[in-house]
């Protein structure tokens, strides 16, 4: 009896602890610009991880969108409409993302949503937005399936017409990284590791395929669990494999630990990752071990974009937390695309906000599809799948404790 009690309680408690980790939280971190007179308030939802894992980049998305909303309100971009941000924390958990999506679509003033950060979270949200016919623009998702369907390699088919993204896909990212690793870094033998999540596993697989295609060799592959801290066994395998490069598909939480443990074990090969690792937290967590590590990131460096100068100044001046570097400017452009679509809808309705929110949402989806303007990150426009037409990528390398852009280019398939 006592023994079975131990087993039973441990099973129950494990279940309970896992479930509680998915509870939803309403973190309305966004400031709200007051309602003046008879102007109508419309809400734009933001969903990103605002606490815990990935929160540095997640907060960059929230505040990037916040600045776009503030700018639109200040410049009266849509006369008679005040925009308000509703920022929800998904903790990088798909289930939480889905309930946040339900909460956003349930808001009768909501016209669209920006987010999420994680492709795996996006998968659970797409259906919710599609049913509500509400536009969703992710500044960060890169998994090809999201816009091009399960069989994207052979038969591209757009699953949801409400889903758009301002980030390019992993197909191009993996290909760009493979080309750079083989041709520029002159690496021939790669060890590929991923975190089994939608984003990481997808990216790692594409990288491995593309790396083989350009002539390199994938010596071994392995997978890790998110939340793991000890990678001793993996590190020994890498050491023994004779690889001259480690490619990691996943987020910085694990890769920072992997690179540290790898270098501590005396394996001085660089770790190459995707945009999910592109955050200052990676360098802070890995310390000197991160020196020489590389990532590919979406678009061109925010600091070099003339249009983003004011944005970065505002971000810093407001003292916002998080990291604008990776997706802040993309979140700004995504938010602006929604605001401009609302403007088009209002203009088409004789300058009045359509009173039926469902009609407005539906028009906004159509207008976002037609987007064509110069944003902070370049031209903002979407192709027939909802993917951005802006296909620029940049390789960054850690140099003296900072990410330095080493090469920018337009990605093409190898």
């Amino acid at each position, binding site marked *: 009896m006592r023994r079975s009690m131990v087993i039973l309680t441990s099973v129950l*408690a494990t279940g309970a602890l896992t479930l509680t980790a998915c509870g939803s939280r309403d973190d309305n971190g966004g400031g709200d610009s007051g309602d003046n007179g008879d102007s109508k308030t419309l809400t734009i939802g933001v969903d990103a991880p605002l606490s815990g894992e990935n929160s540095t980049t997640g907060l960059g998305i929230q505040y990037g969108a916040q600045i776009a909303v503030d700018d639109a309100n200040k410049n009266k971009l849509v006369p008679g409409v005040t925009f308000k941000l509703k920022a929800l924390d998904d903790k990088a958990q798909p289930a939480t993302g889905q309930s946040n999506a339900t909460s956003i679509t349930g808001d009768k003033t909501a016209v669209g949503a920006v987010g999420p950060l994680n492709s795996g979270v996006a998968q659970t949200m797409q259906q919710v937005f599609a049913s509500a016919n509400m536009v969703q623009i992710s500044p960060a998702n890169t998994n090809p399936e999201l816009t091009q369907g399960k069989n994207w390699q052979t038969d591209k088919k757009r699953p949801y017409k409400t889903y758009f993204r301002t980030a390019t896909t992993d197909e191009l990212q993996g290909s760009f990284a493979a080309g750079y690793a083989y041709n520029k870094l002159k690496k021939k033998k790669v060890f590929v590791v991923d975190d089994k999540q939608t984003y990481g596993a997808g990216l790692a697989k594409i990288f491995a395929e593309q790396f083989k295609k350009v002539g390199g060799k994938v010596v071994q592959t392995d997978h890790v669990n998110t939340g793991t*801290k000890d990678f001793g*066994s993996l590190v020994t395998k890498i050491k023994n494999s004779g690889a001259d490069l480690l490619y990691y598909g996943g987020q910085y939480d694990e890769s*920072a630990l992997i690179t540290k443990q790898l270098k501590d074990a005396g394996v001085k090969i660089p770790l190459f990752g995707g945009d999910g690792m592109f955050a200052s937290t990676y360098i802070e967590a890995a310390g000197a071990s991160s020196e020489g590590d590389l990532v590919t990131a979406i678009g061109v460096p925010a600091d070099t974009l003339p249009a983003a100068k004011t944005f970065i100044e505002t971000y810093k001046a407001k003292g916002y937390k998080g990291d604008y570097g990776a997706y802040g400017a993309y979140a700004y452009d995504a938010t602006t695309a929604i605001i401009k679509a609302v403007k088009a809808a209002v203009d088409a309705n004789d300058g009045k906000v359509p009173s039926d929110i469902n009609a407005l949402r539906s028009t906004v989806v159509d207008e976002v599809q037609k987007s064509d303007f110069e944003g902070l990150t370049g031209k903002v426009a979407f192709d027939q799948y909802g993917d951005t037409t802006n296909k620029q990528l940049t390789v960054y390398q850690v140099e003296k404790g900072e990410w330095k852009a080493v090469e920018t280019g337009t990605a093409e398939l190898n």
Partner: protein
Amino acid sequence: MNTLPQQLANGLLLGSMYGLIAIGYTMVYGIVQLINFAHGEIFMTGAFGALTVYFYILPDGTAMAVAVPLMLIGGGIVAILIAVGAERFAYRPLRGAPRLAPLITAIGLSLALQEVVRNFYPDADRARAFPGLDTTHDIGSVTIKDADIFLVVAAIVCMSALAFFVRKSRTGRAMQATAQDPDTAQLMGIDTNRIIVIAFAIGGFFAAVAAVAYGLKYGNIDYRMGFLMGLKAFTAAVLGGIGNIYGAMLGGLVLGVAETLASAYIDGIPGMQQLGGQGWSDVWAFALLILVLLLRPQGLLGERVADRA
């Protein structure tokens, strides 16, 4: 290159950490039959206590040889205070309650501690850098670093001290008596409440030692670090035979080695490629647990005690 010695070393190091934390589960269970699920969080607060000493109390640039003992003391104090406080204010009032009540309290306490650290410790909502001991040494084909040596030495010293304490000291024997039969022990003049507090304090201190080793080894800590480590340590305690302190240490080592070897070698077995690798290590570790419990329900070193529940 033969990787087995290195992989065994990796496993034993990880296992030592599990074992140190598992002591806390097993001692408390042995005496009050309570599974203290907040123990993983006591481990976590110990790490933050040590971090506080390093970053906010010691002057910058303190030599690690001086800093580490002070961090151990700081982390130990925090962990002991929280462990004893939890016993006094959360568990003692429920001493006579049905067993599920303290269990749920433990889970609640665990979440509460996580959220308190996340919300009130500076920048604790993401990983915080922890000073490392990263100098490496090559012993044959095995590479280990200073933090690993610290972990092994700490585990051996702690375990020997505990074994000596429980066997030889008056309090230790009182503790054994309480574990065997709390009511009779009380009738014989043992202050069982005091014994229980001591059990919580020792568990807390061991968790803090493990936490400092964790920080030194992995270089960063976060508010969620206690969850998985706590779960694994609890598994180790059950594997070794919950209630038995040697069992906790052995269970930790077995679990750590099993996990490491599974992730290192299973994917090399023909036909098992899909079931190997680091991502499957937990599956094999828990499969081992199930197997051990099937064959030896009392755990590796557990005693066949009369059923009291």
